[in-house]
């Protein structure tokens, strides 16, 4: 069902935990739906120096959280903002169609944490607003299980 890479990130998730002095924290999903991702960011001079996560969810929710942290650590905010759910899924050698929403959740978790960082630091710069539209996407556009 899952690729070897998904199973590797599920069995040995990277960057699990909390960052006590994180300056950006995002939570997406809810328990009712069966998945919650909490993403912690440490940002210094516009660079993501550390990222950790905690996830309640299925195998692919854990794997996509883990992969998302790997993809953004060491990147600039601007590079991290360009992260897409497709990129997360591709980095994992693909996800079953029904699990694509997990990768979207991972993208949203990163963006929610970045938004939190900006909220504490003078707000999202206007030219970056579009990057955060994904946080407002609703079920009409992204149904669970829909292949993207």
């Amino acid at each position: 069902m899952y690729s070897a890479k998904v199973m590797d990130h599920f069995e040995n998730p990277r960057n699990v935990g909390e960052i006590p002095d994180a300056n950006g924290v995002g939570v997406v999903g809810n328990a009712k739906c069966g998945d919650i991702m909490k993403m912690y960011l440490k940002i210094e001079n516009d660079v993501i120096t550390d990222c950790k996560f905690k996830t309640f969810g299925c195998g692919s929710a854990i794997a996509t959280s883990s992969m998302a942290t790997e993809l953004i650590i060491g990147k600039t905010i601007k590079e991290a903002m360009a992260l897409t759910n497709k990129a997360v899924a591709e980095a994992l050698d693909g996800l079953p169609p029904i699990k694509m929403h997990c990768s979207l959740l991972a993208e949203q978790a990163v963006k929610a944490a970045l938004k939190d960082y900006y909220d504490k630091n003078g707000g999202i710069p206007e030219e970056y607003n579009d990057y955060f539209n994904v946080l407002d996407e609703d079920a009409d556009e992204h149904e669970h299980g829909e292949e993207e």
Partner: protein
Amino acid sequence: MTRVYLDNAATTKVRAEVVEEMNKAFTIEYGNPSSIYEEGESAKALMIDARERIAKCLNASANEIFFTSCGSESDNWAIKGAALRYGDKKKKIIISAIEHHAILHTCDALAKQGFEIVKLPVDEYGVVSLDELKKNIDDNTLIVSIMYANNEIGTIQPVKEIANICKEHKVLFHTDAVQACGSVPVDVKDIGCDMLSLSGHKLNAPKGIGLLYIRKGLVINNLIDGGQQERGKRAGTENLPYILGLAKALELACQEMEETSARISDIRDTLIAEIEKEIPYCRLNGHRTQRLPGNVNFSFEFIEGESMLLFLNIKGFACSSGSACTSGSLDPSHVLLAIGLPHEIAHGSLRMSIGKFNTKEEVLSIVPVLKGIVQRLRDMSPLYEDFMNGRDFVQGKCALCD
């Protein structure tokens, strides 16, 4: 790695004695039971004998046993066959909220054709409410279908009482006994049901064989029109190897039931006690005593079922879960929601179903493994983090569901 198969409610291993019995019909007694020459005659004799032995196990008559391909087929036939036969006069069908999808989706299909479907609620242990049945059953009720025992949480229903209520109101009663047959005594006369579904592969016979018991005197619509097989009600050349396999498996299960049931119930109760002792924040789903011998179903708070299954699989254990991710839909199992579990607890469910080939030792070996997996997933869970810190649960917006 040695594997421990704990999903016997999903399907079971076929017994060697059953395979042997079936082989006979594949290679030696391969005649068509409808043919009049020697090969056909001897095949027919074997089939008649098998039908009689099966009937005896259920305390039915041979002419009340109709072979099908599976439990779902039996369920579909019972409900649709009755609805098509008597639906012009009566329009109400009463089921429970925790029926198998073979009943639920059959009723969804009939609802589209104008039938009224009433789903009776169950209590926190999964026992159907008799008061609700009495309240809802009326002159317009065509059939009541309540499962003998639930496939997910193992709760055994008061089918005799249900049958009596149906009799008082002259309403048909069907019971899906797919999980019960072979595990607990099933006697159609004692229950007083009009129809009963059974499936072979839950009792160490192969997949692809089931039956519907139809009480003598009750006429429902034919399932397959064609030849005279199954008294013309379900045409198609009889699947003799599988019929012989089912007869052998059911007969052995009934002969050994007392001993097997005692042994498996003991493993079940020990497993339940060990899990409750070793793993905090868990909840046994289903009834503690009115429960199938082999069924254990727990919810573990703060974690999700599919990730538990994946880790258990890596460690050599095959189990199942009622989480949304394993049900292939948005919601966790309808059974767990019906017993009143909040979604987040239902997502964290795990079913371990014990069968005749499991040893106590191998079943109990899951406990330390499960304990480690649950802790590992909790250490990863933001819900657990907040719980341990005395904070309210974190709740994000789910852009996908809200």
